[in-house]
């Protein structure tokens, strides 16, 4: 029933498999996931430019083969859908184990924490862009709002991180709210330009409103989060083994990202999410059905921004330093690219996009100056060959595919 395919995202079919079939599925899934994760681990630990190239080429090759084989694709999706609880449990287990595997290389744990933070922000943008279809090219504004609010409160007024975190999120939501009003009047390109201009203005103000942001000096010496006497840069020692302190941040990020995923899922499946989807698909029709479009758009902007702010606050306290350079247009594009590459609207895809785009530039560091060139080139290729992202939500996939097919038909003159 391909027509009703999108419903499958939400409906869990009744399970009719025997125990033996189940076990077989689980074993296959376990092997596949272990393999993928193993490859991922190898990739993340590579340090040599040549090896990184080979590794990336290998992944691209696999992706191409995968793309060419719809049966494989179908099979894997079926497998995942039928065993979603098992697959999810395994994933969580891997995420929890990750820092313990790299205990002697804390930098990788640090990167993991960074990836979690960017996942939070990408999920935020996913609410605005993926759920409600509102372009936002100025997402760094909310990142900045959260980071500055929480860090300045901590530095000047000794406000604890645990209070600064929600306040940062709320401040960011306020910034989202502020741009949502003018954004209501414009669509498509114009909306992109409004948010782009907003991002540029805010970055300039961050540089120039020294009394609020310390200007280009940046906010320095931001204290790490603390619980009572213990703060996050003191390593925890259990049974004589000292765990690097990056793990504290990693688990903080992981928990917050997990919460964001849960909230995202709930939002998507809620009444609100359905209404957003209606607006995304056809605004006028949505209006005709009595959906309060302006109100819902404002909610979408503010909610997305809120998560941007949360990510920003954690980022500020983890890095210990906030500077306008962190919030330039390239940051916005990066977060945008995470959502697009992962697959707009698909929560798992977006998280994966965030992880990939945090880690890959770090690996591309081996190429030094060519890093940005490669990044730009990859982005162009992805836009051309897989605009729907790695894991598109079912509906989006169909939309983009049909567009592309139509275009191809038009070009070749066939019917």
């Amino acid at each position: 029933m391909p027509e009703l395919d999108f419903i499958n995202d939400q409906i869990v079919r009744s399970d009719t498999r025997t125990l033996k079939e189940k076990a077989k599925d689980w074993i296959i899934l376990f092997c596949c996931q272990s393999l993928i994760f193993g490859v991922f681990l190898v990739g993340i630990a590579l340090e040599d430019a040549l090896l990184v190239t080979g590794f990336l080429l290998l992944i691209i090759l696999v992706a191409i083969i995968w793309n060419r084989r719809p049966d494989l694709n179908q099979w894997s999706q079926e497998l995942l859908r039928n065993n979603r609880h098992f697959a999810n449990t395994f994933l969580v287990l891997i995420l929890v184990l990750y820092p313990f595997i790299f205990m002697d290389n804390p930098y990788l744990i640090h990167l993991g924490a960074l990836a979690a933070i960017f996942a939070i922000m990408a999920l935020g943008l996913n609410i605005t862009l993926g759920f409600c279809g509102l372009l936002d090219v100025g997402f760094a504004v909310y990142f900045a709002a959260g980071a500055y609010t929480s860090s300045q409160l901590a530095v000047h007024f000794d406000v604890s991180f645990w209070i600064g975190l929600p306040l940062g999120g709320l401040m960011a939501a306020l910034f989202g709210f502020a741009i949502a009003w003018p954004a209501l009047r414009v669509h498509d390109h114009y909306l992109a330009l409004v948010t782009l201009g907003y991002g540029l203005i805010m970055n300039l103000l961050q540089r120039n409103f020294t009394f609020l942001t310390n200007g280009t000096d940046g906010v320095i010496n931001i204290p790490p989060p603390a619980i009572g006497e213990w703060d996050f840069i003191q390593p925890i020692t259990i049974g004589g083994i000292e765990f690097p302190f990056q793990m504290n941040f990693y688990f903080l990020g992981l928990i917050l990202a997990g919460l964001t995923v849960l909230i995202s899922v709930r939002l998507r499946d809620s009444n609100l999410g359905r209404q957003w989807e209606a607006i995304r698909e056809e605004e006028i029709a949505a209006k005709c059905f009595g959906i309060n479009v302006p109100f819902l758009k404002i909610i979408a902007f503010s909610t997305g921004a809120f998560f941007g702010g949360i990510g920003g606050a954690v980022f500020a306290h983890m890095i210990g330093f906030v500077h306008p350079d962190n919030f330039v247009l390239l940051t916005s594009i990066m977060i945008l690219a995470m959502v697009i590459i992962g697959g707009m609207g698909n929560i798992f895809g977006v998280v994966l996009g965030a992880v990939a785009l945090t880690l890959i530039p770090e690996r591309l560091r081996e190429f030094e100056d060519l890093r940005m060139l490669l990044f730009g080139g990859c982005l162009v290729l992805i836009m051309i060959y897989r605009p729907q992202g790695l894991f598109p939500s079912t509906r989006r996939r169909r939309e983009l595919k049909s567009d592309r097919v139509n275009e191809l038909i038009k070009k070749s003159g066939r019917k």
Partner: protein
Amino acid sequence: MIETWAQQLINGLTIGGMYTLVAVGFTLFFGVLRLINFAHGEVFMLGGFVGLVVAWSAEGLGITNGIIIVLLMFLIAMGVCAIIGAVMERFAYRPVRGMPVLIMLVTSLAVGIVVREAVKEFFPEGANPHAFFSPFKYESINFGSVILDYTQLGLIISSLLLVYGVHLLVTKTWVGRAMRATSEDLDAARMMGIESDVVIRNTFFLGSALGGAAGVMNGLYYLSIRFDMGWVMAIKGFTAAVIGGLGNVYGAMFGGYIVAAVEVLTVALIPEGSRYKDVFVFLLLILVLVFRPSGLLKTPAQKMG
């Protein structure tokens, strides 16, 4: 006091002329393709670099007449940029044509990154600023203490001429008519037998050539070029195009001068104002987008032309 203002007027006209040339490209691309081509700023930058290479090789060939070198620079830079623009269109924008706005937007941003980084990497000493060739560096016409540079004069006049030329091309020729038809309604134009691919390619030829010319002018006027000068020009250029109304050639000119006026006035009137001049420009951008998204000039009857 009056001298200061006269000087500021000249400054404004010069800056505005340059913005205009870039903005016309944005306006044309948006007209036929509904694409804000952020990589256009990089085409502008390439124009400067091509001009520089021309000047170097002219020196090598023993051409000493400054005027000839400048003409060669313009011709070759415009030609090369036209081709580069068309190549970009063919290989990056055509595959994503008709896709959602966001995909096209990100593609153009990414193409921009690629071009910029490629120049930085593969041009000799690409990361450093390069001194530009100019036959009349500091020669000027003086009215009292008001100074009008030869380059400034040339820039103001040639930007007006080029915009007028584009206007003629768009309104009086077959090529232009096809462009206008495409920008009105792509499908209807196609049904009338207009090859949309050709029209779009022509538009990219035209817009990118203007961008290249602006790049050479930029080099001649500021006497140095650098790989990262494109982006700044791109944001000013599309701001100007939006303010004048995307799809409207005269609007682009109008917008270019408005943006320049905002910049000059901010610096001239507000103490310590130079740090806020871009803030005002982008504020104007947002206000225009929100309250008059069709631009300050555009009326439905005079799209493109």
